[in-house]
């Protein structure tokens, strides 16, 4: 038995020693930089939320891991933040939402008003849509249509008046799949997040 163990160690000692050494190296690198990586994520999210709700002076996490059913039994978790103005009033809510895009997952940050009645806008946190076509979901033409739209089911139309603020969103020409993906994300998340925020008693008339 000891002979077999000795044989195994003889054959694999380099692998064992190297694994220990490389593991140590990775642990050191992770310890040194993980704080900065986390801070970068927080800064990015705060930056995006700040650009969506200009009145906000701070964002506080009010509901962690809110569960959202994105269809086909798939559950996604989302953190909900409350934006507060400098005088303590609620300026709105922000949350992360995601769904399948044309090439890859699309991640958005969505902002709604304090009563959860109107959409204040969205920013793209991550997407890998086709350059020149699908990536125009980050552009003003498409994003502008969501600003002020009522919280409810949004419809995607191929043609229409894109300046009218309502439930109808006009698709980006040549990027119907990406446009549909964004609208589906809104339709999946808005209602379910509103219900959970409401159940928590977070909705008020601006207070």
């Amino acid at each position, binding site marked *: 038995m000891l002979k077999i163990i000795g044989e195994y160690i003889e054959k694999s000692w380099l692998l064992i020693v*190297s694994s220990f050494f490389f593991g140590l190296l990775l642990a050191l690198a992770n310890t040194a930089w993980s704080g900065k*990586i986390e801070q970068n994520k927080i800064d990015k999210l705060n930056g995006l939320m700040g650009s969506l709700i200009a009145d906000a002076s701070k964002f506080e996490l009010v509901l962690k891991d809110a569960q959202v059913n994105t269809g086909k039994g798939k559950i996604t978790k989302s953190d909900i933040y409350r934006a507060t103005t400098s005088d303590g009033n609620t300026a709105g809510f922000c949350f992360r939402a995601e769904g399948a895009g044309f090439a890859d997952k699309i991640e958005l940050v969505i902002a709604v008003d304090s009563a959860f009645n109107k959409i204040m806008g969205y920013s793209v946190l991550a997407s890998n849509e086709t350059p020149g076509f699908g990536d125009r979901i980050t552009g003003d033409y498409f994003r502008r249509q969501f600003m002020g739209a009522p919280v409810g089911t949004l419809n995607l139309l191929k043609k229409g008046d894109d300046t009218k603020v309502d439930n109808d969103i006009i698709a980006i020409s040549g990027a119907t799949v990406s446009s549909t993906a964004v609208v589906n994300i809104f339709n999946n998340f808005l209602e379910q997040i509103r219900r959970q925020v409401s159940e928590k008693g977070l909705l008020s008339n601006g207070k």
Partner: protein
Amino acid sequence: MANNTMTALDAVKGGLWTEVPVLRLILGMCPTLAVTAAVKPALTMGLSVLFVLVCSNIVVSLMRNLLKPHLRILMFTLTIATFVTIADLFLRAFTPQMSEVLGPYVPLIIVNCIIIARAEACASKNGIFVSAVDGIFMGIGFTIVLCILASIREVLAVGTICDIPVMWESFVPWAAMRMPVGAFITLGLMLGFVNFLTAKKS
């Protein structure tokens, strides 16, 4: 070239011309096609590969006399994966935007054939100095090709180089150059040009 008698000069020549990974060995095609839509990500990818190449070549060279045939590939992969993870963590900490642009292509350096090929062909048979020089110049050769390819694509796709406008105002951008088709066409033309040069020489 890939033998025990390789010198530092061979490594320099190999990395910069006779064995340029992308154009002569046709290795490392995945990042070459995927991250060359603009110069900045291409340069970041090139430098990341250079870092991993140098570090893995040095470590493999250090352990070359201890490597047993059945552990060789496993040890190469373990070494490369460690340095790729360090490069990935570094990018996420200090250049988060670039890290997002490069997406999965940084972790994918682990399976980049250039690095494992150099570990096998050079570092496992040569001393630390030659292996380090090989890593540096192979990395530089790879970075230069990526940057040339990315410059052509970025100029034609958006009219800029490193986000600095270089084309006239009425220039109409070729959106196709930002897409995979642009990468294939540009790379094909570059390969054709290099083949033409080498055929002419021989």
